[in-house]
C-alpha cells in the first residue's frame, strides 16, 4: 500500500504532473471522497424539505456559476447575459420536453447545446475585437433574449409560462426534493469534474494565456478568436444545462426570473467565490443563496414584528443593495474571493505554529 503523504513545508515539485495535480495530498482526496459519501448517504435523509430545496438551488446555481467562472475567471471576458442564457436553457428544456417529447436525460444536454449555439451567435461579432466588447454584446443579448422570451409567443407561450412533465429516468419518476437532490448533485459533480479537468488541458491553458496577456498568447500560436468563442460557448453550455435542471426542478417556468438582476447575481457569485477557481464558484453559490434566504428570513421577521411594514420595506431593493455591497467589498478587500480565504485558513492550519 502506498504511504499517505501530507503537505510538505514548501514547494518541492519537480515534474509538471505534480504541479497539475488536483489533490496535493492523499488526505485531500480521502476527505473529498468521505464528504461525497456523507453528501449522498446522510444529508438527503437528515435534512428538512426546506433545507433540501436550498441545497438543490445551490447545486443548480453552482453549475451556472462554474460556467461563468470559466468565462470571467479563466478567459478574462465578462458576460452580462448569463441570466438570460440560463433562461434560454430553461425554455429549451421546457419546449423540448413538452412539444418535442424529449426524455429528461436527453433534454437537459440538448438544452445546454442550444444555449451554447445561442451564445455563439452573440459572441461571434464581439469576439473578433480586443477589449471588453463581449460584455456589451452580452448586455444586448440579455435584453434581446428577454424580449424574445416574452413576445415570441408561438414558441415560448409568452407570459403564460410552460409546465414541464415530471422528470424521469428510464421510467423511474423523479418527483420531490429528495430524488432531485441526487440528480442535481450528480450533475454538479459531473460538471465540476469536467470543468476542473478541462482547465488542465491545452484548452484551459490557452484560456488562461488569453486572460493574462492576449498578445503573448497570440505570439505563442494560440488563435485567440476561436478560443474566446469556445470559452463563451462552454460557459453558455453550463448556463443552459443549469437552466434546464432548474426548469425541471421548478416544474413550471415563466419569463420573469431571467432578467439582468439574475445576471448580476451570477457575477456576484463568481466574484465572491473567487475568480479562476472552480471550487470558488461553488462557495459563491452557497454564499449568495445563503444571503438570499437570510434576507428573506430577515424581511419576514421585520414584517411580522411591524417595525418596517409602515415604510413598506420590500425584499427586492434590500437584495439588490446586499449583492452590490458584497461585490464591491469583495473586489476591494479580497479580490480572489472566498476560495482565497479558504486557502489562507488551510495554510494557517498547515503551517501552524510557524505561520511565516
Amino acid at each position, binding site marked *: 500500500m502506498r504511504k499517505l503523504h501530507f503537505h510538505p513545508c514548501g514547494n518541492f515539485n519537480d515534474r509538471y504532473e505534480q504541479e497539475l495535480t488536483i489533490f496535493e495530498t492523499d488526505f485531500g482526496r480521502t476527505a473529498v471522497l468521505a464528504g461525497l459519501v456523507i453528501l449522498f448517504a446522510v444529508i438527503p435523509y437528515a435534512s428538512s424539505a426546506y433545507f433540501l430545496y436550498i441545497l438543490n438551488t445551490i447545486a443548480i446555481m453552482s453549475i451556472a456559476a462554474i460556467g461563468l467562472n470559466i468565462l*470571467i475567471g479563466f478567459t*478574462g471576458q*465578462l458576460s*452580462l447575459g448569463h441570466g438570460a442564457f440560463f433562461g434560454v436553457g430553461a425554455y429549451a428544456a421546457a419546449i423540448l420536453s413538452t412539444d418535442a417529447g424529449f426524455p429528461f436525460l436527453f433534454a437537459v444536454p440538448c438544452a445546454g447545446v442550444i444555449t451554447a449555439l445561442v451564445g455563439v451567435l*452573440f459572441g*461571434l*461579432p*464581439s*469576439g*473578433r*475585437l*480586443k*477589449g*471588453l*466588447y463581449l*460584455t*456589451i*454584446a452580452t*448586455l*444586448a*443579448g440579455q*435584453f*434581446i433574449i428577454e*424580449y424574445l422570451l*416574452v*413576445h415570441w409567443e408561438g414558441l415560448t407561450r409568452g407570459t403564460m409560462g410552460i409546465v414541464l412533465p415530471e422528470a424521469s429516468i428510464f421510467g423511474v419518476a423523479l418527483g420531490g426534493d429528495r430524488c432531485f437532490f441526487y440528480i442535481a448533485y450528480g450533475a454538479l459533480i459531473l460538471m465540476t469534474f469536467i470543468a476542473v479537468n478541462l482547465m488542465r488541458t491545452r484548452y484551459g491553458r490557452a484560456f488562461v494565456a488569453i486572460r493574462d496577456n*492576449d498578445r503573448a498568447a*497570440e505570439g505563442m500560436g494560440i488563435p*485567440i*478568436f476561436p478560443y*474566446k468563442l469556445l470559452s463563451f460557448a462552454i460557459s453558455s453550455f453550463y448556463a443552459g444545462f443549469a437552466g434546464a435542471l432548474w426548469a425541471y426542478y421548478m416544474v413550471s417556468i415563466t419569463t420573469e426570473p431571467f432578467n*439582468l*438582476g439574475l445576471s*448580476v447575481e451570477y*457575477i*456576484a457569485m463568481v*466574484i465572491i467565490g473567487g475568480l479562476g477557481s472552480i471550487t470558488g464558484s461553488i462557495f459563491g453559490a452557497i454564499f449568495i443563496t445563503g444571503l438570499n434566504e437570510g434576507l428573506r428570513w430577515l424581511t419576514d421577521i421585520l414584517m411580522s414584528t411591524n417595525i418596517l411594514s409602515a415604510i*413598506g*420595506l420590500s425584499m*427586492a*431593493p*434590500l*437584495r*439588490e*443593495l*446586499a*449583492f*452590490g*455591497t*458584497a*461585490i*464591491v467589498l469583495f*473586489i*476591494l478587500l479580497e*479580490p480572489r474571493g472566498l476560495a482565497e480565504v479558504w486557502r489562507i485558513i488551510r495554510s494557517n492550519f498547515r503551517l501552524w505554529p510557524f505561520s511565516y
Partner: protein
Amino acid sequence: MEFFIQLLVNGLSIGFLYGLAAMGFVMIFKSSSVLNFAHGELMALGAFVFLVLIGWAGLPVYLAFPLTLVFCFILGFVVERLFLRPLIGEPLIYVIMLTVGLASMFKGAMLLIWGGNLYTFPDFLPEGLAIRWGSVNIPPVYAVSIVIGLIFLMLFGLFFKYSSQGIYMRSVADNQPAALSLGVHVRKVFALSWAIAALVAGMSGIVLGIINGINVHDLSSIGLKVFPVVILGGLDSIGGAVIGGIIIGLLETFTGGYLSTSLRDVIPYIVLVFILMVKPYGLFGLVEIERV
C-alpha cells in the same frame, strides 16, 4: 405627415437626451477606458437630489440646480476615491465588475429610500420657451435640454482639444504608463474625470426627470441604453455620442410609432449587435488597427 413630423421631433429630442446621457459615459471611457455600468444610477441620484432640494427643501430652481451639480461633482470625487482608486493598476475587468456592483448598490439604496414610485418635479419652466411651428409642438423642456446639451457639447469639445487637463485625460486613456512617465498625475485625472462624469450624469438625470418623471427603474434602464448609443457613435467620441443618441432616439420613436411599442425598447440593442458586426468601432470611434 403630421404624425411623421411629430415623431421626428420627439425622436430628435429624446435622442438628444440620450446623447447628453452618453457624454458622461464617454468622458469616463475616454480618460480611463472603464465601461461605467453605474451611469444610470448616477443620473437617477442627481435627479433625486434635485427633487429633494426643490421639493422638500423648497429652494428656488436657480439655487437648487447649481447645488445639485456641486453635489454630483463631489459625489464623483468620493466614488473615485473610495472605490476606484484602490483598483488603479488592477486588471480592467475588476474595475468594470466594480461598477456593476456599484450600480446595484446605488439602485438598491435609492429604492430603499424613495421606492419604485414615479415622482415629478413641480413645473418651473416658463411656457414662453415652448416652440410652436404649425402643428408641431415642442414643449419648453426639450428646448431647454437642447440648449444645455449644445453648450455642454461645445464646452467638452474645447476642453478635450485645448485645455491641459483635457489633454492629460486623453493621454491617460491612450497609454497609462506612458502618461505616468511623462509626469501626468494619473490619480488626479481619474478623480477629475469621474467628478465631471457624475456632474454630466446628474444634469442629464435632471433633464430626463423633468420630461419623463423620476423613477429609479426608468433612469437606470436609460443608463444601459447608453451602450447602443456609444457603440454606434464610437466609444471614445463625444460628438459621436450625441449623433449616436439622436439616431437611436429617432429609431426608437419611429419603431414605436410605426411598428410596435414593445419592440421600441429592444431595437437599440438589436442595432448594437448589428453594429458590432459591420462597424465595430462605430461611426466616429478611433479605429484600432490591432485585432485579435
